[in-house]
């Protein structure tokens, strides 16, 4: 089981701020995870429509889409940050 957390309009479109899911064996990278989530329903497909603007942090560290998800306890998906 891995904890997924969502922020900003990705959270709004998916309709929840977090959930726990079981990752299928063929989900090896972040790109795989985004592809898998898009099959979970229309709200996910809409939220993750443009993968290029989906930022991902694993265990609270920013990661690339090509990075592996192994070892992840918490995976966050969010749009580009607008701090400051």
């Amino acid at each position, binding site marked *: 089981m891995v904890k997924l957390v969502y922020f900003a309009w990705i959270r709004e479109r998916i309709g929840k701020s977090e959930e726990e899911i079981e990752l299928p064996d063929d989900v090896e990278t972040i790109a795989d995870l985004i592809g898998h989530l898009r099959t979970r329903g229309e709200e996910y497909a809409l939220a993750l429509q443009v993968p290029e603007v989906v930022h991902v942090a694993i265990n609270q560290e920013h990661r690339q889409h090509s990075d592996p998800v192994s070892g992840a306890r918490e995976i966050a998906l*969010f749009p580009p940050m607008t701090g400051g």
Partner: protein
Amino acid sequence: MPAAPTIRVQAEDFDQQEEINALTAGKCDIGAVVSFTGLCRDEAGTLAALELEHYPGMAEAQMRRIADEACERWPLDGVTVVHRFGKIAPGDNIVLVVTASRHRQAAFDSAAFLMDFMKSKAPFWKREIRKDGSEGAWVDARDTDHDALERWQ
């Protein structure tokens, strides 16, 4: 070695003078202190507030990484970074960066560096709340914020 950076994410406002004093109190080797305050801006007069969302835990961790990086790049005697979350009205403070150094250029450059990284590398998101009650938009990341990062590579 600089003191460990002071990093805070909070709903409450901050006091620039207090934060500056905390960095300089009792020290005689600091020649320059630069503070940057980012405020909620509303030129059109249609904004009731910004609602700032953040990723608790990662926000602090990321701010600390950016501050540590600044301490490696410049000879700093102190760094403070405070970022607010929640509802923030036009004219109110959002973010504070304070840097202290022997040298004025190090204080200026490190404060600019910290702000550039806070803008696009710290997990905060801003949403507009309009005066007329309509649902405001999420504030878009600006290309200029990403361009600003490139000068530090």
